[in-house]
Structures are given as C-alpha cells and as structure tokens.
C-alpha cells in the first residue's frame, strides 16, 4: 500500500498542477483598447493694469499692446492629443472709462489666425465684472488654434475724461483654458 502511494505520487503532483491550470478566459489584447480621456484646466493669460498707467488725451484709441510667445502646440503631446479646447475670459474694470480688449492668435508667419474681442463698460460703482461666453475650439477652429505660436493683447479705450497719474481703478484680465485630451495607445 505504501509503495502504491509512492508510485501514485507523480500522478498526484500532476493533478495538483492540472488543478492549477483552471483559469477564466483572459484577453490581453484589450490593452490596445486603452484610451485616456483626461480633461485638464490651466491658467491662460492675465493682467492687472492700474488706471494711472494708461495716460491718454480723452479720445478713443489703442493705448496698450503686447505679444507673448505661446508654444504649447510645439509640444507633440498637445498637438497630437488635444481634441477640444475651451477658453474662458473674465474682465474686471474699476476705471471710469469703457475698454475693449482684443486677444489675437498669431501663427508662425506672424499672421493673425483669430481675434477675440472683449468689451467692458466704464465703471460706475458696484460690481463691473464680465465673464464672457466660453470660446469653444473644435474641428476646423481647433486645427487653426493648434497653429498658434504667439498671443497678442491690444487694449482700446473709449472716449471720456482723460486719465492721469492720479486716476483710480484697474483693468484686470483673468482667463483659463480647458483641454479635452484623447490619448490612445499606439
């Protein structure tokens, strides 16, 4: 009996391993279906200019301008994977003159791709903050956006009592971008 058992041992061991081979159906190719769709928010542009920096003669005119590099779309990650973008702008004006801000997107050849114009009335006490309608970039508009390498800011003032070094109030821009990504494996 003892001997029999020993003879049977390899079979028993074999059975243990056979037993071990039970497994549900697994499909490792599913990893190719991996698709990440994160949504990122980030600051876009801002400024805070006090009234006494805008010296003018009371006429409607362009009183400030600047251009800044914006190289996000030089990054392959964003160029390849961004499927939708939204931009939110907010202006606050506590100066008793009306303003208009142009946000300009430039391409590599210094051509204007798009102009977003934001108007805000003169301050007359109380709250004077405007949250503008979300700019949505999809499809063709998104393709154009991806050529952007530079952002320009042009501030125009409406006519009114001239500002000087003792004028009060500020013009503030705050803005953010929401990036919808689609990242696929391979």
């Amino acid at each position, binding site marked *: 009996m003892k001997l029999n058992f020993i003879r049977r041992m390899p079979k028993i061991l074999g059975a243990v391993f056979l037993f071990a081979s039970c497994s549900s159906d697994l499909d490792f190719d599913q990893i190719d279906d991996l698709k990440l769709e994160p949504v*990122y928010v980030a600051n*876009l542009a*801002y400024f805070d200019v006090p009234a006494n920096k805008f010296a003018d003669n009371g006429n409607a005119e362009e009183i400030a301008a600047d251009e*800044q590099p914006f190289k996000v779309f030089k990054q392959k990650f964003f160029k390849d994977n961004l499927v939708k973008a939204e931009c939110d702008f907010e202006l606050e004006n506590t100066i008793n003159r009306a303003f208009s801000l142009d946000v300009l997107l430039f391409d590599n050849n210094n051509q204007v791709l798009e102009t977003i114009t934001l108007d805000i009335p003169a301050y007359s006490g109380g709250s004077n903050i405007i949250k503008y309608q979300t700019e949505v970039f999809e499809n063709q508009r998104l393709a154009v956006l991806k050529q952007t390498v530079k952002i320009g800011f042009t501030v125009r003032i409406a006519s009114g009592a001239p500002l000087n070094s003792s004028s009060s109030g500020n013009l503030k821009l705050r803005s953010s971008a929401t990036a919808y990504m689609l990242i696929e494996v391979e």
Partner: protein
Amino acid sequence: MRKIHLIILIAFQLSSFAQNKEILYNFTSIPQSSLVNPGADVSYKYYFGIPLLSGVSVNLGSSSFSAYDLFANNGIDFNDKVRDIVNKSSDKDKTHVNQQLELFSGGFRVGGERSKSYISFGLYQEFDFLMYVPKDLAILGLDGNRDYIGKAFDISDFNLRAEVLSVLHVGFHKKVSDKLVLGGRAKIYSSGANISSTRNSGFIYTGQTAGTPNIYSQTIASNLEIRSSGIATFTKDEYRGSETEDILHNTFFNGSLGLGFDAGLTYYFKDNLQFTASIVDLGFVRQSKDIETLTYKGTYTYEGVNPNFENPDAPRNVLAEFDKAIPRDTLYNKYTTWRPVKFYSSLQYSFGESRYGEECNCRAPSKRGYANSIGGQLFIMSMPKQPFVAVTAFYKRSIFENLDFKATYTFDAYSSKNIGLGLSGNIGKFNIYALVDNVLEYKDVSKANSVAFQFGLNFIVPDSD
C-alpha cells in the same frame, strides 16, 4: 509603448507573489529549505539538485486587483476596468512578482562520519518586480485635474523597483549541540538590470484661491529620480541587439556586483518544541554598469501668459521657464541598492510517534521520531513604503516513511485565506517536491490576488548512508 505592454504582460503572466516561502520554510526534508534558513536542521551525506529543475519558484501578487479584474474577456470596456481598479486601489496597494530558477545546487557533509557540519552551494537566477499603484498619477492620466480642484496629486505614488540578478552562494551549517543548529550563507550578487525609483516626493496642485492673479493657483513641486543600471543601452535608438539575450549575458557575466549574507538558527527547547529564525538577503548591489539616473527636481508655479504693456519687447516663454524650473537632468553616478531583506521565524510543536522511526533509522534525526507537527511562522520583508508582514499557521505530517506533507494557512496583505499545500517525497535517492500556495484560488487562477508555486528535483544521499 510596446515595451510597456510587454513588461505588463510579463508581470501578469509570470507573477508569483510576495516571496514569502512559507511552505518551504522549515520543510527540512527539502534541501532547498536551507535557502530560507541557513540554520535549518537539514542533514545529508551529500546532495545535488538536478540542474535547472532543482528549484523553480514563481510568486505573483497584487493586493488590490487580479488579472481577471483587468483582462477578463467579459465585454466590459477595458477603460472602465482600469478606472475601477484605480478607484478601489490605494497608494499602498502593490503588484509584486518574484521568480527564481536554480541553475545548480549541491551540498555535502564535511569532517567525516560523525561530523554534524554541512556545506551547501549553488547558483540561482532571480527576477524581482515591485510597483505600488500610482493612484494619484493614474487619476491625473485618466480624469485630468478639472474635477479635482484643490487636490494635490502626490508624486510619491510613483514607486517601483525591478531587478534581474544571479546569486552565487555558499552556506555552512553545523549542529553545535543536540539543541542548537547554527548556519550562515555568503552570497555574491550579479545584477544584470536594475531600475529603482522609490524615494520620490512632490505634488501637482491646481486650486482656486482668492487673491491670486489668475483663475487657478497651479504649482508643480517635483523631486523625482529614476535610477537604472544595465538598461540605458536598450533605450538608445542605435541599439540593434536583443534585450533578453543581453540582459541574460549581463546577469551572469557582466553584472553589477554585490555582497550579501543569510544567517539562521534552529533551537530545541525540548525534543518536541522547536524554534527557528533566519534573516535572508542582508546585502547590497553596487550598481555600476551602464548607469543612468534621470531626475526632475524643482518647483514651478504657473500663472499664465502675462502681457507686459510697459515693455512690449520683453517676451517671456512660459514653457522655457518651466523647463528651467524643473529641468530633466541625466546623471551617471554609481549607486547602491539594498536587497529586500527577509526575516522568518517559527515555533513548532511535535507529537505522535512516527511509526517508521523504530523499524528504520534512516530518517533524518531532525524528525526526532514525531509524525505530526503544528506551529506558527512569521515573515517580514522590507519594502519601500512599509514592511510586508505575513503570519502563517502550519501542520506538517510524515504520511509515509518517504513522504512528508505540509499545509499552511497564511494571513497577509494579499489574502486572508491563503491555504498552501506542500509535498516532498523520496523515490529511491530522488527527492521530488511541489509546493503550491493559495490553493483555494486555483479553481480560477486568474481571479487570484496572489499565486505562488515551487517545485524541484534533487538527488540526496542521506546522512546515515
């Protein structure tokens, strides 16, 4: 990307878990038990392992998900599965793979007939992989930061180590008295490939705070370091060889060298009350071949594009500022990695006289003529975040003169109902053993959080021959 697939697939397919060899520990009819306690009460005139077959072990474990959770062919979208796993995991959950293959091993008694001193030696190859679930970074990749305003994504969640190495070892143990066995083992490690990134810190934060210039306050503080040895060559575009062959070659012939020690003891309070303890892999590898360390260290607060109306000719490139604040640096310094240290201990009570003891005195004296043993074991292993601890209860029985059986019940981070079974039998002078962990999970191994098995074949000439 392909390589990442491969690594993940290998990790899941080879996976054997946690390196706790609770069935092998103190299973002294198997000579390999002296690899987990060099002071185990093992005796032989001489033995050798059948090359490549004497010790094959695989341990796989994953504390928060199984292969089934991720790869089940059940029609559920893969992305939903990934999301579920990330949601139910914590940053303390981990995936661990350990595989060992003995190339050769042997041992002999030294100092003549009456001597109680033994030498054992061998060479084995080991692969070890440990990764914590990078929960916060996974959320950032899956969902982004929009719905997590105010949360600091923890960069320390990125924590992994992996190594392929060969270990050449020589051990010595001696029965100092009837009550005490002492043993030690010296090891030379040769590491073919190592990657280690276990001491990261920092965060990625997006919040909304009153008084800040723009809509969000956004800060990245990064103290990230990824050290590698034996791998940098493969990442270069010019590389035309075969990674597997080169890693194997380096592991045995051109590795980073290291030194280690094991020590252990067996002590009999009484004939039938035994205590053992061992410490294994107290050692280090000096990583010195093909070193490359990548670091991303620095802090950057991003407010957005800020036009300068007073000085329109001073453009600021925000991306360049970021790269300058958190630069990617490559260093080529040698570094030292510590081997995961394992500590084992057991207390064993034996009872019931063995029927075979009287008629034939050929059983190892360590059996001391008892047929049954019960007891408890403790296992502790060092890990980057917190030590891995397992507690085991066991029952051992000599079923026949040449057949020993051990059953274990283990409680650890991977499972609270891990039942293990082991058999070791002798057919003539051949010893064959098979140890299987987590047997309850074998009805569907893909759903197991951890699986371990080990088997081997030895040729043993007993002490009394």
